[in-house]
């Protein structure tokens, strides 16, 4: 694969992946207090699993060096236990104990993830732009 086309594929793959992370972080933040989901019970935090993704499967299969992109392997639910808060006035509080189960979401952590994903998105977008300019310059040699 042409070197720069491999590079742009790798950088481009990160745009979709980081955008997914942004969306999941936003969803977690929006549902940080949701005690009643459609399936019943509190909202469970979701996590994005990232895995490296060889840009050129042929080169990779032949054992040659290949550009490494990234791929969302899956979006999974965080198995950390729900938070338990004592609040008898809450509509979803346990009638006996008065405990409310809240989503296992830490809003501050989600904000950090959100900002990191946004910054990574911008960095990869910058890379795509740089590569585009490099290719344009290389083509100039033919003029």
């Amino acid at each position, binding site marked *: *694969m*042409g*070197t*720069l*086309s491999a590079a742009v594929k790798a950088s481009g793959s990160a745009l979709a992946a980081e955008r997914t992370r942004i969306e999941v972080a936003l969803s977690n933040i929006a549902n940080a207090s949701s005690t009643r989901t459609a399936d019943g019970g509190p909202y469970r935090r979701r996590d994005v699993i990232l895995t490296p993704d060889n840009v050129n499967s042929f080169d990779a299969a032949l054992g040659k060096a290949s550009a490494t992109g990234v791929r969302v392997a899956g979006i999974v639910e965080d198995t950390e236990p729900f938070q338990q808060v004592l609040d008898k006035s809450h509509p979803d509080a346990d009638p006996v104990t008065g405990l409310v189960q809240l989503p296992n979401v830490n809003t501050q952590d989600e904000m950090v993830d959100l900002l990191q994903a946004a910054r990574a998105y911008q960095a990869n977008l910058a890379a795509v732009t740089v590569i585009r300019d490099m290719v344009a310059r*290389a*083509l100039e*040699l*033919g003029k």
Partner: protein
Amino acid sequence: MSINAIAGARLAQPGNITQGLSKSAGGADGFAQSLGRLIEGVEETTGAANTAVTDMLNKNGDVHDAMIALHHAETTLQLTVQIRNKLVQAYQDIMRMPV
């Protein structure tokens, strides 16, 4: 109509195709051989350029490699055509000489 100008252009040519020309300036056979070598050079560089451009299009090769190959093919062809033209002119000049 200075051959020196052509020699000047040779400086920019990797492979130094014109080396054969200056060495064998001594006879008709020398000219024919040199011209043959020049034409071979054109075929070779044109073929390499085609390969490089195809590789670029297939995402199998780099853009700058294709551009450099194209430039090399272009200069080889230009040089060859100019040398050929000079040879033809020289031949015609000789033929016009009164015996």
